[in-house]
């Protein structure tokens, strides 16, 4: 071989970022054509928003700084759910399925670097998460009169992107320990459903007992929804960055990255 080290190997005239975009385009197309993925990732968060706002829409929830409308409360929580659906649930299912069916193994026989495949798939999740966030905010604001933030938009963007990346990394970590495509869906739901309840996504956090909130505070779901709630809360002063929550999310992301690097495999797990 020539003296070129792996870091300098280029793909023809294509720079590495173009290869990531190439992968992203086809991953996104695959995602949009998958009925199950579309339903769980795009339709379900909207359905939840409609249901929760219709059922509790006129009440208020106590949050730091005062009380806010239920609809204002549910928008950030369901944005968190949408981010997690796009980045974690959908990614775990699709990556596990692709690994078990040999698709990832075949891709690894080509010159494409592993990190390009991961980055392309993660970019699909981040873009989907941003889209679902925009849709939820729009529906919440227009249909249910949820408070629309202005000044805190940068904080929201940071929370959406950081949350999405964190849950992608956690998704690769979970996919690395799941043995079959069939168990991917129940596994992700078994992990996430209880966390949604105790983290204040489904139930207003002012009625959740303190000890349950303490349990939830260990896990990243609550910190994502809190970071978003801080930015959406009309009583928030300043730019709306919840640094404490952002820090803990980042720690979870790094933890996921470490597990994924150590454990993630490209070939079907031998039975």
């Amino acid at each position, binding site marked *: 071989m020539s003296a070129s080290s792996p870091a300098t190997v280029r793909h023809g005239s294509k720079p590495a970022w173009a290869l990531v975009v190439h992968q992203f385009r086809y991953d996104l197309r695959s995602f949009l054509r998958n009925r199950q993925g579309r339903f769980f990732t795009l339709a379900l968060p909207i359905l939840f928003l409609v249901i929760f706002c219709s059922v509790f829409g006129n009440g208020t929830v106590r949050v730091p700084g005062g009380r806010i409308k239920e609809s204002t409360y549910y928008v950030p929580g369901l944005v968190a759910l949408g981010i997690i659906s796009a980045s974690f649930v959908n990614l775990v299912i699709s990556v596990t399925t692709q690994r078990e069916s040999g*698709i990832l*193994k075949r891709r690894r026989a080509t010159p494409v670097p592993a990190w390009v495949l991961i980055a392309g798939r993660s970019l699909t999740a981040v873009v989907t998460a941003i889209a679902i966030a925009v849709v939820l905010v729009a529906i919440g604001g227009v249909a249910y009169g949820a408070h629309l933030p202005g000044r805190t938009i940068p904080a929201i963007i940071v929370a959406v992107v950081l949350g999405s990346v964190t849950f992608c990394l956690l998704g690769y970590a979970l996919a690395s320990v799941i043995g079959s495509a069939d168990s991917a869906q129940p596994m992700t739901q078994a992990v996430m459903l209880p966390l949604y309840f105790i983290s204040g996504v489904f139930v207003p956090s002012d009625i959740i007992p303190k000890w349950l909130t303490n349990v939830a505070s260990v896990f990243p779901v609550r910190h994502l929804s809190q970071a978003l709630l801080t930015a959406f809360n009309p009583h928030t002063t300043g730019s709306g960055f919840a640094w404490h929550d952002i820090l803990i999310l980042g720690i979870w992301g790094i933890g996921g990255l470490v597990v994924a690097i150590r454990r993630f495999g490209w070939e079907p797990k031998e039975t």
Partner: protein
Amino acid sequence: MAYGEFEAVRGIDLEVQRGEVFAFLGPNGAGKTTTLEVMEGYRKRSGGEVSVLGVDPEHAGSDWRERIGVVLQESDVEPELTVRECLQLYGGYYRTPRPVEDTIALAGLSEKADTRGARLSGGQRRRLDVALALIGDPELVFLDEPTTGFDPLARRAAWDVIAGLQALGKTIFLTTHYMEEAEHLADRICVIAAGEIVAEGTPQTLGGRDSARSEISFTLPAGVDAGALPPAVAAVISDRQGRRLVLESHEPLEILGALSAWAREHGHALADIDVHRPTLEDTYLKLTERPQ
């Protein structure tokens, strides 16, 4: 070469020439796929030397992967992408891919170019597998049981594709369970059993097939004893089942001459006479026989 605790193959020593179709045969569990995966760079080996296109696959990078194509024994196609999109995706991984439409045509998928992977039949999926292995315009193609599960018509079509690859100057490393496939396609055949090479040669010479004895069998006419046969014929009787005799000889024509002269003289028709040269399958079965 071994992985885990189990030594899958040992003492495998083989060389494949550029431009050759090399068939790697052996029973299930003989170590074919392991050997292939070592050469494809998927598996680390515990010992020995492997050089593929001048590079050790264990340490090969993307430059080397530009030059190989792989059809895995089991791999699904991308279910949500059409044949064309799938080839566009994979083509994008390479510096100098083959033209997409060309490759679709080569694999015989032109009519299915806009069909999604999930809606392809088994044979069409396998052809897409082959197309994906070719999209990078590789010098060397690994095919792990490319036609398993094909109907005879689809198998013939696949053979045409593989023969076409050879015409393009590609080197092909093939594993298969089908002797006709090896015989039809391969320039050279290597048989492994229980992790060791048991024979190597061209389809015509494998396992001494070209110098193997021919078998002549017939049923003795009623009332005729084997002792009545001419001495040259009686001397080569190798097996006897009731009145059915089996003769084995390197010079079947001599034996047949003596036998037919005798039969004509005594008015026996010997209507069920059968002359049989060992097929590749006979040779293969003899080579891979497991000790009971």
